[in-house]
Every structure is written in structure tokens, then in C-alpha cells.
């Protein structure tokens, strides 16, 4: 959860971070599920963390090789993918109990979901914060940028806004279900 807020100040960074996390998620799910018969129960968490750390190191060097600029923007947060609860959680809850193929699909699904969530945050913050999307200017010259959306507080506010939206949708659906239920009774 932590790196989610820190790097999503532009849509591009959000996408890169999402891709990196998804890659680590898929690869670690793959390795963990193929090793699951050979790892003793007592040391499994440590083993999982080491597997994850290996892939994170690979991603770190990969991003450095592809784009130095991006690597600078993401900074230490790539390394911090290691402690992302999502990855360890999936390794423990799913990959250590299921076959390779199913774990691969699980990693893929989770990864795509994670990328979408990061994009939701990144797109809103970039549009409001710098008036652009993926570096493309959206509004005219007169647009007053909301600098605060690029800064740390903006991350909290954007996440709060999205949660508010989802809460509202869930509530509305509930109310609708209730009202249609009543109608069918009457």
C-alpha cells in the first residue's frame, strides 16, 4: 500500500510502478508455487521474502537499464516493492497451496487489478496537478495547476476521494436492492 501513494503523482510513474509490481507478483507466484513441495513450513515466510527480493532486484536493474530518468523518479520505492503486503500475501495465501498454472493466472489477475488501481490514482493526480495526461497537455494556457495534488497530501486526498466514490456506489446499490425487494413483496 505504501508505494501506491508515493509514486502515483503522474500517470506514467503509476503505470511503471504497476507493471514492476505485477511482474514481481507473477514471477514470485510462479516460483513459490513450483517450490511449494520442497519448502519446510517453518521457514516458508523467509523463503518467500527472499524469492520476492530476488525478483525485485532484477526489476530494479531492468528499469535502470531501460530508463534512467524513470528510475530516478521512482527512486527507492522500487526496492520497497519487497515489503508490499500484496505480494507476500498472495504467495502465502494462494501460490503456496495451488498449482503453477493457477498461481500464474492469480498473479496475472492481481497484477492487472493493481495496475488499474494505481492508474486511477495517477491519472487523477496528474490531470489535476499538472493539467496533463501521460505528458500530454489537456487544458489551455490559463489552467491553474493544483500543485497540492502532486505533493504527498494529494495522494491521501485522491485515495480518500476514490474510496468515497466506491462507498457511495455500494450504498446506492444496497438501497436499490432494498427498494426493489420491497416492491416485489408488495
Amino acid at each position, binding site marked *: *500500500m*505504501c*508505494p*501506491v*501513494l*508515493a509514486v502515483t503523482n503522474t500517470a506514467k510513474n503509476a503505470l511503471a510502478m504497476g507493471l514492476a509490481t505485477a511482474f514481481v507478483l507473477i514471477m514470485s507466484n510462479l516460483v513459490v508455487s513450483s517450490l511449494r513441495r520442497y519448502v519446510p513450513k517453518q521457514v516458508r515466510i*523467509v523463503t518467500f*521474502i*527472499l524469492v520476492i*527480493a*530476488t525478483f*525485485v*532486484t532484477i526489476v*530494479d*536493474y531492468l528499469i535502470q537499464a531501460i530508463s534512467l530518468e524513470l528510475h530516478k523518479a521512482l527512486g*527507492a520505492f522500487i*526496492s*520497497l516493492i*519487497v*515489503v*508490499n*503486503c500484496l505480494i*507476500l500475501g498472495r504467495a502465502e495465501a494462494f501460490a503456496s497451496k495451488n498449482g503453477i498454472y493457477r498461481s500464474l493466472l492469480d498473479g496475472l489477475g492481481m497484477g492487472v487489478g493493481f495496475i488499474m488501481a494505481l492508474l486511477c490514482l495517477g491519472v487523477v493526480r496528474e490531470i489535476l496537478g499538472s493539467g496533463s495526461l501521460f505528458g500530454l497537455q489537456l487544458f489551455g494556457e490559463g489552467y491553474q495547476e493544483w500543485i*497540492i495534488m502532486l*505533493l*504527498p*497530501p*494529494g*495522494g*491521501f*486526498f485522491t*485515495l*480518500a476521494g476514490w*474510496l*468515497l466514490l466506491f*462507498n*457511495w456506489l455500494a*450504498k446506492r446499490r444496497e438501497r436499490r436492492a432494498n427498494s426493489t425487494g420491497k416492491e416485489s413483496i408488495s
Partner: protein
Amino acid sequence: MNSDPLWAIFLNACLINNFVLAYFLGICPFLGVSGKLATATRMGGAVTFVMVVSSMSAFGINSLLLMIDAPYLKLISFIAVIASTVQLVEMFIKKMSPALFRALGIFLPLITTNCAILGLALFQTNKGYGLLQSFVYALGAGAGFTLALVLMAGLREKLELAKTPDIVKGTVITLVLAGLLSVCFMGFAGLSN
């Protein structure tokens, strides 16, 4: 080698670049345990303690890795050492002071997966701090974490009594609160000049 003065490092880690509110590290315990003031204080103490211990060991590892010229092992060895240090500290405290162990309780194992700890180790190596500087940096980061946690817990205890609309109850209002707190802490950026 970095030559920042010690007080500047402390202030920087504690207020200006507060780990929780400016770097977004350790958000999970920040949102999870900040419901009650007493628990928040204990958690802050435990995190500060682990931060200092793991920062010292991270400094040791980093010098060793530089000696054998294998920087790509940094991340793996950091995480392994932090996890085992926390385990070791837990056993040590259990043996030496059962009262303290009960006070810290379930928080110690939770701290292992706290990104603030690993982040601290990584930042300190990136900045090239010496042994004493790392120590002060860890102290400052821990103090900043505790400060943010205690402030948040105090606010949330008040919020329990306030009238809030149904739709924002729970996580949403907590996040807005965290955002406002983060805005306040941005005011400290003026200190750095």
C-alpha cells in the same frame, strides 16, 4: 561520505521529511494502529527501537558488501537481516524483560513487514551516512513516526465523538485527516532553508 550535521539529520528525518507523511512509509501501521492513543505510543516506541537496531546492522552489512564488491546483494541481505534481527530482539526481550515484552506484545513481528524499516536502511545507504549519522537518522525517523502516530491517534479519538456522515466513516475520513496532517507537516519544509 555525507557531512550533514547531526542535528540537521535529526530534524530532517523527524519533521521535514517525516517518514509517514512525506515519504508514505509505514502507512499500514499508521492507519491500522492509530485508533487508540495508548497503543499508538507503544507502537511508536517499538518501531523506534527496531529502527535503531536495524539501521545499525544495515550499516554493517553495507560496508561488508562494499568490501566484497557485491552491491546487487544489498536488498536481499537487508531484508533477511532485518527479519532475523527483529526475531532476535524479540527473543532477547522476552528473556531479559518480560514486562517490556508484554508491553510491545504483538507489535514486534508486525514491524518486520513495515516498509519504514527497510526504507530507512535504503535511504541511509543512498545518502552515504556514517555510523553515528545513521544512528541519529534512525532516531529521528523513529521520533517522526511516533509523532505522526500519536497525533493521528489523538485526532481519531476526538473524531469518534464527532458527527460524521455515514458515507465517509472509517477509512475515508481517516485518509482525509492524514492528508490534512500531511499539509501541516509541509509547513516544516521552511526549516530546511
